[in-house]
């Protein structure tokens, strides 16, 4: 094991190299580009024996990975924002064809107006495509989770594509010390793929078959069951990874000082790190507050949230995206999971940090204080610049 000081993007590239990806295909887009640039360098220098397929769009990049993965190759691509939106149709194809493609996504706001800074709208909009979704908090977590994503996606119980996201610039272009596991360790953790269940070389088969109303639902239910199994399989994969490296990032819904908390804020990605500091400061002031991090959005940690709800009075969700006409995307999911469960604490939705607006300690503290003192059904847009009074 060596320690390198690398960006979140290079953490993705090193993970793809250590995974011995056989086919990589991607189209450049800010702020993702340096991920696949580095992979192209690994291929050019011979450090990675892979086919790097150059294409004319993100749509084709994902199609190249789907086709290769359908035949049994380990595949990787990466994108951001508009590129992910252009891939949308193929995201459904990847999951429907049960191809375990792994993709790095640098979360970037969606145009218009153009923005290259982070928010989670791009990946939230892929919620229903059948992809596993992880949200990274640090460059180390991005590297570790990408390696785990290959094992999870390829496992026979799951066989679904997986995306590992990181916040634009906060991780993508910020360097941190990252422990890089050795190639021998990763080879033991992540052996070559078993034969594809989709297509086999030399056998007459084709993707894109037709199914009538008599059996379409049953194919979709197979995906639903695989995604449900992914919850347990991921915990086993993370246990294995922790035995190898000593690092366990805490499963689907890691918590911070939540055990004796009466008020918990649900966070995603890098805002979590800032929120930890706020929790410490507010605890010093006597508030029993804690955090729960949505590390996986698909599969959704429904049971973990219900367990949390059994011991707290108030849960706030800090959303970095908004579903127009409804509420924050993560909030709607948390509310849905808890309403059908046995415990229903007070729920609040806080929208912050869209388009790369900094989520500072002041931002998080404002959300926490509002959560502690008010009940309001509306989504609260924190630090919104407006002449109107906030509701």
């Amino acid at each position: 094991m060596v320690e390198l000081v690398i960006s979140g993007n290079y953490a993705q590239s090193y993970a793809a190299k250590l995974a011995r990806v056989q086919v990589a295909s991607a189209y450049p887009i800010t702020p993702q580009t340096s991920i696949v640039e580095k992979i192209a360098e690994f291929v050019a220098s011979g450090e990675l024996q892979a086919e790097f397929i150059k294409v004319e769009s993100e749509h084709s990049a994902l199609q190249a990975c789907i086709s290769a993965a359908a035949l049994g190759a380990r595949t990787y691509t990466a994108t951001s924002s508009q590129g992910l939106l252009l891939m949308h149709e193929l995201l459904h194809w990847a999951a429907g064809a049960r191809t375990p493609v792994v993709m790095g996504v640098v979360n970037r706001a969606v145009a218009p107006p153009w923005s290259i800074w982070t928010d989670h709208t791009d990946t939230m909009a892929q919620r229903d495509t059948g992809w596993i979704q992880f949200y990274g908090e640090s460059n180390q977590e991005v590297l570790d989770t990408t390696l785990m994503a290959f094992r999870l996606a390829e496992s026979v119980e799951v066989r679904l594509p997986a995306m590992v996201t990181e916040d634009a610039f906060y991780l993508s272009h910020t360097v941190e010390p990252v422990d890089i596991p050795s190639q021998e360790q990763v080879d033991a953790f992540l052996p070559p793929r078993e034969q594809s269940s989709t297509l086999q070389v030399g056998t007459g088969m084709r993707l894109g078959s037709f199914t009538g109303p008599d059996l379409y639902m049953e194919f979709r239910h197979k995906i639903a069951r695989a995604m449900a199994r992914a919850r347990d399989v991921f915990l086993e994969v993370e246990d294995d990874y922790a035995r190898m490296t000593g690092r366990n990032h805490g499963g689907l819904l890691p918590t911070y000082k939540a055990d004796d908390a009466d008020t918990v804020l649900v966070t995603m990605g890098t805002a979590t790190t800032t929120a930890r500091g706020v929790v410490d400061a507010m605890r010093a002031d006597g508030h029993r507050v804690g955090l729960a991090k949505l590390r996986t959005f698909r599969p959704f940690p429904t049971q973990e949230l219900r367990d949390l709800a059994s011991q707290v009075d108030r849960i706030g969700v800090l959303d970095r995206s908004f579903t127009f006409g409804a509420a924050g995307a993560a909030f709607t999911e948390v509310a849905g999971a808890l309403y059908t469960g046995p415990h229903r604490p007070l729920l609040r939705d806080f929208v912050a940090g869209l388009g790369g607006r900094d989520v500072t300690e002041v931002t998080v503290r404002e959300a926490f204080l509002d959560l502690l003192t008010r009940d309001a059904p509306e989504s609260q847009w924190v630090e919104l610049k407006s002449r109107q009074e906030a509701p």
Partner: protein
Amino acid sequence: MTKYEVEEDLPEAPIATTPSDVIHTSSWRTFRPVIDLKICTKCNVCWKFCPDDAVAFDGEGFPVIRLDYCKGCAICAEECKPKAITMVKEE
């Protein structure tokens, strides 16, 4: 062909185990294209526009409709410049 009845019978991924040319789409047809070889100039426009690869050629280069696959869409008749193709209702 395998008979699928419930979820557990299905393969993991929705794949087809036969090539698509076993599906004879001719049953969809109401009108069939009939080519008057005295008018045909062998320009190949019918072949170029056929959306289903249902136009082949005979030894002299005249178009021959592959009636197992022709759905009767009449695009060939519409595009034929010398109007050599007539759509005739199937009996």
